[in-house]
């Protein structure tokens, strides 16, 4: 086959993407070496001063990073467990199968910020239905949004609601594409449902699970919309994630240079840690 054709197919997409991205990336790196802020809005050169500040004098960034890790790992584990359970339940014949499948998919079709606005009224501490209903059975009002510990769990609840469907979709699509033979063999051997899951379904699903978890981790690491509307990082900094902290530094305090340093460092950390997680998961779930 003539080899020139392949470039005609690849290059439009590749170059459009590179063309759009090249400026932002180079610009971010350059900006991170400057002291651009609201007093001196110019591209001066201050070397690695910003990076020294980040690594020696900014515990808030690292706290927000660990908080983000906690939030995203917890939500993704919950989403995986619940999503897998749901997928298994509607995989085979059950009553109203298609109805439940549609219902389980709906949250991922809704705009996170907009639903979070609704969640905010839902969890409202004096006018929301949750505390009211709990009050009817004698539970004291829970401070869903203003208690530093509980607010984290409120964010997790909303994230799980929003994105379990995505996990469910990927896993159900995977389940439906599995070959039939191993299940027949297991049935002939008279394997119990539990053993069937552990020795047949789960190993067969391992590659799909890894893919789904990685995709969700990537998306979960960007938690921003939910936090932005639900708690604005509050109370205090209790739900502040890395993205939100960078947003505050860059677009509220206009320390553009420093925000670029944060962005770039954060991106490098994300790429390294996601690669490691992918490798570890592959090792753990696919046993030779």
């Amino acid at each position, binding site marked *: *086959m003539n080899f020139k*054709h*392949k470039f005609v*197919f*690849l290059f439009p*997409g*590749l170059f*459009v*993407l590179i063309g*759009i*991205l090249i*400026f*932002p990336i180079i610009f971010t790196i350059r*900006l991170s070496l400057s002291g651009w802020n609201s007093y001196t809005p110019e591209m001066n050169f201050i070397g690695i001063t910003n990076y020294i500040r980040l690594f020696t004098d900014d515990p808030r960034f690292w706290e927000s990073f660990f908080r983000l890790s906690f939030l995203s790992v917890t939500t993704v584990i919950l989403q995986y467990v*619940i999503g897998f*359970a*749901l997928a298994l339940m*509607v995989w085979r014949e*059950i009553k109203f199968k*298609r109805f439940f*499948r*549609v219902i389980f*998919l*709906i*949250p991922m*079709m*809704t*705009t996170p*910020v*907009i*639903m979070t*606005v*609704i*969640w905010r*009224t*839902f969890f409202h501490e004096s*006018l*929301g*239905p949750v505390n*009211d209903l709990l009050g009817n059975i004698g539970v004291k009002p829970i401070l869903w949004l203003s208690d530093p510990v509980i607010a984290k769990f409120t964010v997790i609840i909303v994230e799980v609601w929003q994105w379990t469907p995505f996990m469910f979709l990927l896993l159900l699509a*995977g389940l*439906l*594409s599995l070959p039939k033979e191993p299940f027949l063999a297991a049935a002939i051997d008279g394997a119990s*449902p539990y053993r069937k899951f552990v020795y047949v379904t789960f190993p067969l699903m391992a590659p799909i699970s890894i893919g789904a978890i990685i995709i969700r981790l990537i*998306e979960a690491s960007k938690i*921003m*919309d939910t936090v*932005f*509307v639900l708690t604005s990082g509050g109370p205090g900094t209790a739900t502040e994630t890395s*993205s*939100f902290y*960078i947003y505050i530094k*860059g*677009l509220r305090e206009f320390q553009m240079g420093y*925000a670029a340093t944060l*962005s770039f460092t*954060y*991106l490098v950390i*994300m*790429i390294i840690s996601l690669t490691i997680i992918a490798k570890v998961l592959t090792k753990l779930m696919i046993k030779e």
Partner: protein
Amino acid sequence: MEKLYTFLKYTFITLWTVFIVAPFLWAVSTSFKDFQSVNSKVTYIPWLDFEPTLEGWRVLVKSPARGGVDIVEPYFNSIFVTCTASLVSIVLGTLAAYALSRFTFKAGFVRNNDITFFFISQRIMPPIVLSIPFFIFLSTIGLLDSLLGLVVVYIVLLMPIAVWIMVDFFNRVPKELDETALIDGCNPYQAFYKVVLPNSIPGLIVAGMFCIIFGWIDFFFAFILTFTEVQLLPVKVVALNSSITPWWSLSASALISVAPLIIVAFVVERYLSKGNLSGALK
């Protein structure tokens, strides 16, 4: 044992369904309330708990000058940006995915997989990292606060999704298909256009739906890169959330904003049940 399992299964499914539906029911109920029924005590059922009004919905179509919230224009803006960006992403992404699935690329240490990874890895980029440079980039070329500027940015968000789904999909379309077409005298473009593409409709639909979902639900770029000239739907709805919140019009506009994509859930389910999706999504 079997019975217990069935019982637990249906309990879990029911509880989860209630959890999913709860915020929607609450929003529907709230959208018919007025100041009194929101702020005195928590109310649920119209007529029984409170006297429903249509005020929350009526406000949506009033002009801002008469105290309304004009969401019609943001609605069309959102549709335009989402559809245009999805279309461009699908076209470019499908071409690139076809190339990556059928031909071998070699440049230094870069192989096909690395190029595919480059496309997909753009999803790792948190919006905040891109938003500041994009802000300056767009204001330099005069596209800040414009629909076109948003489309450009959304292409970066959506093309990775199109490539991710389509590479996987093309890998499952047998190579013999294009080879036969080439032997029959098609050139590579005709083979792609006349033979491969018609056989890839399920993949294209899935990729299209995912692009539309992720375009429609984006908030952050629209929030940073537009101000007054152009407003997208999520930004408009969240803006209602500020100051003194009128929960009723907030709920009404939220419901009307999430409604169109719920249809997508039905389409996805159909493809899932017909077994077409399992090939397109893995």
